[in-house]
């Protein structure tokens, strides 16, 4: 009988139920869309911030003080310490190895350069001082666990644009900074001769691309690391390493000094991808290094990211609240209009409890169906949004469906509770008389 009554209320007035259902489905669609955007996009946004470039800098611990002005190191060629390139694979063995998005070692030496292409009657080719930067463009790094990892300067410095192409690893090729190219009168395809200052022997490099960076590298020559190591007579060594890591914005806990933490606190700190924790893990892996956080990038990123995330969550919660109120109102209305029915049931001897359970069962059924439909509706705009803004499609989550169904049930029950309580106090006689 109970189920017959419930089923009856659906079949007798399908249009009314349809309206309640659609209000619920739409409300839950809002919830689904907003929640899935908040859940997926937060992670995605952190990756977008990697376009700011590296946030960690690794230098030799025993290094002398760099004399760097405008990106040019004025130390003599042999001053300072170097680090072994062979160790770099260990970067992908640290605890947060999957958060290391890219890294690129740098070896720079002052050189003289001239190009036969610029030689003509009016301006004979003159050797000019410049900086030769050795790095990886797209390098396969062997990792101790037997796999390998592709990375390079293109990934750590995404704002570097090459007109032409990047050099091939190990080839006698280079890309030339755009200002240097203008000075030398060289274009892509020409040959540039370089000689490390204070050493002898010219090395011809083919210019395969022109590099624009908007920074001092525009005046430099960038060549494969192995070539520069040979020229500088520092085989298998580099001077600086840029690491781009995906991090969690620093909070009050992250700013605590790890040395003053209790062992439990230290474990929690160590196992959270804070930039300072990743820096510590890298310096543990790469012996004799000094890992520093590039503050401007790390802190700017942390501040903006945490604000945007909070903003998204607030939008989500306010959307949930509005949807809940609208759905609750709709549920309330659907109970209110059934006053006569309730009066009749009570006149026939049903207790307030039974009436309440009956109506609640009905509302729950609506909630589950509506929640399910709403989930399917809401997932579509969320996917479109992800695709349009970030070019990726968020995966539908089963967990989210569960949350949405529970939410729908809670909201409809809460919306019906108030009119139901009033209904339980009804005196059947005046209602049936139509008063």
């Amino acid at each position, binding site marked *: 009988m109970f189920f017959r009554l419930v089923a009856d209320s659906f079949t007798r007035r399908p249009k009314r139920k349809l*309206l309640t259902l*659609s*209000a619920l489905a*739409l*409300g839950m669609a*809002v919830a689904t869309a*907003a929640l899935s955007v908040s859940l997926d996009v937060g992670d995605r*946004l952190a990756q977008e911030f990697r*376009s*700011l*470039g590296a*946030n960690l800098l690794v230098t030799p611990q025993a290094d*002398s*003080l760099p*004399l*760097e*002005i*405008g990106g*040019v190191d*004025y130390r003599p060629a042999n001053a300072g310490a170097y680090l072994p390139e062979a160790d770099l694979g260990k970067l992908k063995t640290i605890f947060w190895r999957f958060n290391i998005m890219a890294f690129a070692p740098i070896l720079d030496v002052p050189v003289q350069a001239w190009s036969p292409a610029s030689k003509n009657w009016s301006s004979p080719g003159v050797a000019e*001082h410049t900086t030769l930067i050795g790095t990886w463009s797209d390098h396969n790094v062997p990792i101790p666990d037997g796999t390998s990892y592709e990375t390079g300067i293109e990934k750590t410095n*995404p704002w570097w644009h090459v007109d032409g192409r990047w050099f091939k690893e190990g080839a006698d090729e280079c890309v030339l900074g755009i200002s240097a190219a203008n000075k030398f009168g060289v274009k892509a395809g020409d040959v540039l001769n370089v000689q490390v200052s204070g050493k002898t022997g010219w090395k011809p490099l083919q210019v395969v691309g022109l590099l*624009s*960076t*908007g*920074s001092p590298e525009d005046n430099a020559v960038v060549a494969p690391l192995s070539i520069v190591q040979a020229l500088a007579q520092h085989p298998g060594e580099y001077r600086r390493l840029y690491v781009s890591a995906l991090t969690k914005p620093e909070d009050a806990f992250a700013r605590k000094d790890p040395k003053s933490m209790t062992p439990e606190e230290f474990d929690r700190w160590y196992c959270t991808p804070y930039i300072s924790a990743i820096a510590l893990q890298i310096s543990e892996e790469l012996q004799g290094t000094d890992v*520093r*956080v*590039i*503050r*401007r990038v790390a*802190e*700017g990123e942390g*501040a*903006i990211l945490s*604000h*945007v995330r909070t903003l998204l969550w*607030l*939008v989500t919660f*306010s*959307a949930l*609240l*509005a*949807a809940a*109120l*609208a*759905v*609750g*109102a*709709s549920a*309330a*209305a*659907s109970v*209110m209009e059934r006053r006569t029915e309730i009066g009749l049931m009570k006149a026939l001897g049903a207790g307030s409890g039974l009436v309440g359970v009956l109506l609640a069962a009905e509302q729950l059924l609506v909630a589950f169906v509506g929640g399910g439909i709403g989930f399917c509706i*809401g997932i579509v*705009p*969320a996917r479109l*949004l992800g695709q349009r*803004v*970030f070019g990726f499609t968020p995966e539908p989550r089963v967990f989210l469906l569960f949350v949405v169904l529970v939410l729908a049930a809670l909201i409809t029950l809460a919306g019906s509770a108030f009119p139901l309580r009033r209904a339980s106090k009804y005196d059947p006689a005046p209602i049936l008389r139509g008063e």
Partner: protein
Amino acid sequence: MMSQSPMFWRIVRRLLTANYGRLFVILLALGAGAAITSSLLNLQIDAKKRLTTEFRALGANVIVAPRDASASSGGATLPQEMLSKIPAENAGKPVPAVGFLYLIGEVAKAGQVHHQPAVIAGVDGEGITKVRPGKRTEYSSELEQAANACEVGAKAAEQFQVHAGDSLHLRNQGRVATCEVFAVLATGGPEDSQIFIRLAIAQALAELPGRISLIQASVTGTPDVVQSFIAALANRLPQADVHGIKQLAEAEGKLYNRISGLLSATVVLVLFLTSLCVMAGMSNVAIERKNDVGLMKAIGGSVRRVVRLFLAEAILLGIMGGIVGSAIGILGSIWLGKAVFGVAARPRWIVYPVSVAITVVVSIASAFPLRRLASVRPANVFRGEA
């Protein structure tokens, strides 16, 4: 509608006040819709503006350098007066600008004989911490007031074994100076191995009075605003090379577009679905009026008049719900702005009429199912047949 008889308005009033529970439910749904509309619209406008300010945590994004500064010479300089030619404000936001003069001198902790080469940077101008963000691991505001105060990069401080309060001895080609360390700075950049002193001392050490190496400025605004600032400044300072920092410009442009696109899309999506949701909830309430319609028709009300009655009711409800809800929403967004950015969102009054209008439209649209009531047959209604 104004030409209607007093009777019309009396009926409307009765329609509204007959059932307070119903009125409350409708106003709740409409008000919630209006509140979220106004607060999201307000917050969205504000957040986009705030975002450009947030990006300045990344530091300077505009550089003024000498035109012929080739990498090898490093010797070209600019006149110091150029610093005063940088506008102090752009589009209502202050523009911190700092002039730097770099030289390589020899440095030692006071009292020690062994000097080591280090980069010494003379700084002058407002907002050094904004232009060159970093973390001061040691800092004393008292010592900062001194005429020979200096700030030491973390790596340099380690090398020379100095802390805030110590003094450094600087020398360059026979010219000497001393300075008192007031802060130790960690930036992760080349600043970590530099020593920052007052510009006048650096100029004396380098024997370059009235000259600076470059100016760094931090301009707040969307990528377009920054670009036009650079163009205007380049026009004003033809003898210098004015350029943006590509690393920041590109990333900021990209992130700004992503984040503001995300915000707009989320807000539009939420608003659209919320209005639909409110509409469906309202329609549910509206259909309940069958009995009223049946009665009106039975006593001779024409379909047009009946529909007009309900439209008038819907508009009134929309205005009421909209006015109250939007006000709550705007107040809410001020609080939300504070929660997110630490600064209260400025209410933008244009949002208020817009969100009231949207609420009225939603309210009218949700009275739409009443059109079907035109076909209601009074006799059926009174017999209790649905």
